[in-house]
């Protein structure tokens, strides 16, 4: 592995686009996770009563589906990232590597 290869890749326009797009995508999803989680925590800290509101005539309160939503959203967000990274991003990466070989 010579330093030239890293230089060449670094100057490759597709590489620059790839890392910019991927970073934007990753930070956006991280932001979504942080907002969801800390949103949940702040509701608990500032308005705990609201989560105790029963849904309709049920004994189930708003907090239960919301808590489940946070759990499911963590899984879904990782799924969204993996799907795009393992297809689109990996394909571009492979192209770049093939070329500099």
């Amino acid at each position, binding site marked *: 592995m010579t330093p030239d290869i890293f230089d060449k890749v670094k100057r490759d326009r597709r590489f620059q686009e790839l890392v910019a797009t*991927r970073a934007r995508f990753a930070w956006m999803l991280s932001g979504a996770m942080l907002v969801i989680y800390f949103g949940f925590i702040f509701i608990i*800290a*500032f308005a705990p009563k609201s989560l105790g509101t029963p849904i309709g005539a049920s*004994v189930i309160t708003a907090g239960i589906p919301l808590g489940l939503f946070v759990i499911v959203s*963590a899984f879904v967000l990782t*799924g969204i990232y993996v799907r795009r990274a393992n297809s689109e991003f*990996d394909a571009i*990466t492979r192209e770049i590597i093939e070329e500099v070989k």
Partner: protein
Amino acid sequence: MRTRCILPALGALTLLAAIVSPADAAGAIEGGGRQALNMPAIVMFFAFVAATLGITYWAARRTRSAADFYAAGGGITGMQNGLAIAGDYMSAASFLGISGLVFASGFDGLIYSVGWLVGWPIILFLIAERLRNLGKYTFADVASFRLEQTPIRSLSAVGTLTVVAFYLIAQMVGAGKLIELLFGLPYLYAVILVGALMIIYVAFGGMVATTWVQIIKACLLLGGATFMALMVLVHFGFSPEAMFRAAVDIHPKQISIMAPGNLVTDPVSAVSLGLALMFGTAGLPHILMRFFTVADAKAARKSVFYATGFIGYFYILTFIIGFGAITLLMNDPEYFKVAASGAYNKITDLLGGTNMAAIHLAKAVGGSLFLGFISAVAFATILAVVAGLTLAGASAVSHDLYASVIAKGRVAEDREVRLSKLSALVIGVVAIMLGYIFENQNVAFMVGLAFAVAASCNFPVLLMSVFWKGTTSRGVLIGGFLGLVSAVTMVVLSPAVWVKTFGFKAAYFPYDNPALFSMTIAFAGIWLFSKLDVSERARKEQAAYEPQYVRSETGIGAAGAMAH
């Protein structure tokens, strides 16, 4: 019958006791003396031990190189690694502690488990593939990639060993108490048994054995928990409404179990706890090591996806199990210490403490045979987790401290692996001794401390060296050290440790969790002392960021999978 002080020893509940609201730490496993020998549990446990020893034998025969020993030769698939990661995370403490918390206070258990899960997406988005692309065996490989080897590896090794030590003590003490209670085995024997088995797994089978033990245990635990949750749902005709209704009718706290209690009180504590759980996960050395066991970045990503799914599913199960325990146990005096008058407290009088809720529920839904199964699974769970910790600690000693710092990279591979095996033996023996010494101590704060150190030293060091070009060795060394020291100091001076554990009158630091402050100190320290570092070495390190950046993003030059 020996009487013991109440010992809130198990990991996750410990965290609860340590950093959330100590008043809520109802869930202690009370060492109220041993139980009679539990035969089905013992038979099933020995079946597990026999199977894992068989795996260790098989793994030992195929473990030849250092890559095999530390990273299973990179031959673990994404799905397998996802299960192993989930296994590392689903400790006996999280299974018993969270279901016990749900049993005692309902909704609060959900808040707690959510906090444990949300670190995983962040690990995936920011760390997983870069770790795989840059590292070889330990996270110190990544942190010291373009920095000075000796100081950065020393710091990472100290961070690793600190986390491993605190985590391991909490697990060993918890294991001893739990096994004493479930199997009727004396505390010291239980601790020695756990220590001996973990030494065998790690020293002979390395990462291959450690990973497969973890995978088997994860499957058993997920299977057992699924069965329990299903039986609870069957009981209520698959109507959550009926289950929650029954729980509210039976539970002494009534409808308030459906809303947040006092787990989260003020915003600063809430954020600090959230940060520690989220980023502490991303700094746990035994978890980070798992990313080197897969072939490439693609598999590393997949493993986080699967792990998040399994862990999330598991937490939903523990929530159902907790509510099931409320409905099926609370009206049955069989599971409680009943006074002569026939009265009992439906929460605090549960035999063995609220952390035994899931164990008692196993008996209620599956009889004594299933109780034996779940007890054996709980034991297996502890074994698998301590084995992972031991391997992480041994790798830090042999790969980081010995091979890089002391021998300056001039060491034969087989010698390094031999030293790692020896380290595993030493760590195991020390863990047994510490487990014995701390038997009657309150070790509740130790898992909280492990997470705080992971979030305030390992994680900032890793993140800054990978993401910021300006990072220099001096910055990382000083900042990481400040994070480590401030986290430990603040935890020791906090209400949970200074007042509740040591018995002093007033705490010097007002919050039980320091992450918000110690993480800030670490990041600011790394930034500031890197900025102030204008040495020739610093300039070279910053110039070396470019190739590191390209490799971290593309995997060019990364170590591939080793074929067997």
